[in-house]
């Protein structure tokens, strides 16, 4: 226990040493000289802190100018008297104006405009060296922050005086931080061309200004240091402009990093819903609204991070999942997933930002939980979710359905799902549709009058209608029967390709409440075309040419005479048999009247045969649904087969 205190002291010394950071201009970032959060940290120093800091930088002031003048002409008092009529000098730590100490002036101005007093101290140094000067001239106080002092001309008298200078500087900084519409700056957030020096021949480069604080500093010193000025550290270099570099160096040397660790966060101050756009009539928290009706949300949140929020950057967005498009989006929204940006031009740490936006209820009745998040667009989502529970209900009859699914299948048992687009079917073949929807209105939907039907246009007759349909313009009702509010209905029907080939078309379907209204005109769409069905048999004297095929009745097995001369039988998954005549010139397959099945070249020389000649005329070749390829006599006696039955 007796080692506790020494240990604590040792710990403090080590911690202090670890925090010492040497300043280097090489880490100067021209697009982000200082963070907004650091720049606007108005409470970083009190009056006493400022005074203590000023005292530390000038322990002894040469008030009477007894030291030798750096500009020649004897002592500083003699040089000052000769040139500026002053032989005594007041250091900044001792300076006062209208009864206020310099520390108090700096502090008060920083508080008034919400600017870090450290920024103001560095500004006084980088413009007039007032923090470290042991014998400042009156002209240095007159233009203390360089406001109204062009780099190439004398200073403007309308801005003279320490208080005046500090105030103008802070006022301008705040205007730029707030993106004031009445305060224009030569540079903007984003890409700018910034010279290295007032001398145009020194050139410049494009700088992407990342934040308002950096924009504000460039409004003060509209030049950037070139590489040589950066490399020179505290020194000078050809074509160097040092204002922003020196700001960075002094700030880093005296107060640490200009960038700090950014933090982001918010807390909800208030969340209210109104019935009117002027936000006068508040609605209860348990919100119940009519379908298609609009209401207005005002949300106030506090910035609990250390980064400044900006209009058109800090937005509210659909959440759960992020970027969710809301069913309550209205015409005031930025898009369906972005209700609004903050109303304020900027919101500093601890400040409050306001979102106001209109929400329009969907037609669909039900209980909703609209979840939103706050995000810095293109950067990050802030932690937290805002939830607005909304019940959409109506005392009037509401007929509405919500499509839940719409799928196509190749089989009647609805086990093999197929893509809804680009479906190709042979004449007479079927696909099967299963659609599921929910009655989201408040009225019963009787099965006798609630039917799936072709749409686009409404009441269209479909060429894909078949016996499962009521007629070509009406299909089926729900298999569950009548649908009560909230109930789910399942609709199953088939589509049969017509007897003639058809080009690709969009078969759109909706739901009609017969004689009253269409509940939805777009339940789902099938993109389908009809192809000519290949023959299912090759009879006596018929020929299968290159590219032709035979198709089993169930469309599962296909016999193809390929371009390479090979005759191949395919299952739905693979080739199950072939004549293995690829490259041998086979050009036509003939079911001869002698019962022989022969593959000929173009010059009628045979390549392959079934060796069933003289087995009788009238034979036919059939790819069977069991996968066997068989030649039959007219009396259905098999004369040749591949033996591939049962293969898949």
């Amino acid at each position, binding site marked *: 226990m007796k080692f506790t205190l020494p240990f604590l002291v040792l710990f403090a010394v080590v911690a202090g040493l670890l925090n010492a950071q040497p300043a280097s201009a090489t880490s100067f970032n021209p697009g982000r000289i200082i963070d907004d959060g650091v720049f606007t940290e108005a409470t970083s120093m009190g009056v006493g802190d400022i005074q203590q800091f000023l005292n530390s930088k000038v322990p002894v002031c040469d008030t009477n100018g007894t030291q030798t003048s750096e500009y020649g002409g004897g002592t500083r008092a003699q040089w000052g008297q000769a040139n500026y009529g002053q032989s005594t000098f007041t250091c900044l730590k001792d300076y006062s104006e209208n009864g206020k100490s310099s520390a108090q002036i700096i502090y008060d101005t920083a508080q008034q405009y919400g600017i870090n007093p450290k920024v103001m101290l560095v500004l006084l140094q980088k413009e007039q060296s007032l923090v470290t000067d042991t014998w400042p001239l009156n002209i240095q106080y007159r233009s203390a922050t360089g406001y109204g*002092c062009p780099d190439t001309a004398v200073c403007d008298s309308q801005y003279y005086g320490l208080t005046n200078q500090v105030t103008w500087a802070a006022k301008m900084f705040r205007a730029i931080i707030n993106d004031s519409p009445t305060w224009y700056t030569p540079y903007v957030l984003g890409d700018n*061309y910034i010279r290295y020096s007032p001398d*145009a021949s020194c050139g410049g480069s494009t700088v992407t200004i990342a934040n308002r604080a950096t924009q504000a500093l460039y409004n*003060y010193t*509209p030049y950037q240091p070139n590489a040589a000025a950066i490399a020179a550290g505290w020194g*000078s270099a050809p074509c160097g402009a040092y204002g922003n570099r020196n700001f960075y160096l002094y700030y880093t040397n005296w107060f640490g990093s200009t960038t700090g660790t950014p933090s982001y966060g918010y807390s909800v101050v208030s969340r209210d819903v109104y019935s009117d756009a002027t936000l006068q009539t508040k609605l209860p928290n348990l919100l119940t609204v009519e379908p298609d009706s609009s209401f207005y949300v005002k949300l106030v949140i506090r910035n609990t991070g250390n980064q400044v929020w900006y209009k058109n950057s800090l937005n509210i967005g659909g959440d759960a999942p992020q970027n969710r498009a809301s069913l309550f989006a209205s015409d005031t929204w930025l898009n369906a997933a972005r209700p609004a940006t903050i109303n304020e031009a900027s919101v500093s740490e601890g400040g409050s930002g306001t979102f106001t936006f209109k929400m329009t209820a969907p037609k669909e009745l039900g209980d909703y939980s609209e979840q939103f998040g706050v995000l810095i667009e293109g950067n990050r989502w802030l932690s937290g979710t805002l939830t607005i529970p909304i019940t959409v209900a109506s005392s009037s009859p509401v007929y509405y359905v919500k499509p839940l699914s719409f799928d196509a299948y190749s089989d009647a048992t609805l086990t093999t799902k197929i893509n809804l687009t680009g479906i190709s079917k042979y004449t007479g073949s079927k696909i099967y549709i299963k659609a599921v929807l929910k009655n989201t209105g408040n009225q019963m939907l009787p099965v006798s009058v609630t039917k799936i039907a072709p749409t686009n246009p409404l009441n269209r007759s479909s060429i894909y209608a078949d016996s499962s349909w009521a007629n070509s313009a009406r299909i089926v009702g729900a298999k569950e029967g009548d649908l009560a509010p909230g109930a789910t209905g399942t609709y199953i029907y088939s589509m049969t390709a017509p007897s003639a080939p058809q080009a690709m078309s969009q078969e759109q379907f909706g739901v009609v409440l017969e004689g009253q209204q269409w509940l939805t005109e777009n339940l789902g769409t099938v993109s389908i075309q009809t192809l000519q069905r290949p023959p299912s048999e090759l009879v006596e004297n018929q020929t299968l040419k290159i590219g032709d095929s035979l198709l089993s009745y169930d469309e599962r097995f296909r016999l193809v005479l390929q371009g390479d001369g090979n005759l191949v039988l395919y299952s739905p998954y693979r080739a199950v048999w072939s004549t293995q005549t690829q490259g041998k010139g086979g050009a036509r397959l003939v079911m001869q009247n002698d019962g022989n099945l022969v593959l000929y070249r173009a010059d009628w020389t045979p390549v392959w045969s079934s060796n069933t000649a003289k087995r009788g005329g009238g034979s036919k070749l059939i790819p069977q649904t069991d996968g066997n390829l068989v030649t039959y006599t007219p009396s259905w006696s098999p004369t040749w087969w591949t033996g591939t039955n049962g293969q898949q």
Partner: protein
Amino acid sequence: MKLRTNNKKTPKKFLLIALAIIAGLTLVYGVFAFQTKAWPFSPASTVNLNPTSSEEKSTGEEIKSDSVNNNTPPNKATPSNDISPSAASASVLFSATTQDNTTYHIRVLIETVLDGGTCALSLTKSGEQTYTANADIQSGPSSSTCKGFDIPLTDLSPGTWVATVTITSGSTTGTATKDITVQ
């Protein structure tokens, strides 16, 4: 019942109790300080209270020297009988030319502090109508700028335009020209 006392042991016991209290208080403060970031667990001060370094001092002297050189000492000022303003030219350059979804933004740096005046912008594209706009001049700390040119894209067709800005403030004038690309 007879009370047992031992007066000889009282000072040592008192000392032990006092030490225990001190140790306890130290421990309690240690925990408190650690949790509240009080001394000695407080972050090292971010304010450097060391005397001015030689680098800070020499750079400060350079800054002061520049300031002195930019302000003619009143005792050295030369009286002038010429009271008529003479024409002067100001350096002007395009500092930002950017485009967003709806607007083309043009910003200008005037490298001197001007008291009032106007900026005239013209955009020309061969074979097309010239776009013109005027704006007041706003002075800044050490320079001036035109009070923004935010041009609706509906007024500009895509392509290369020649932008010219001419500033006038009293007898001071300046001009700059730049090709800009509207997308």
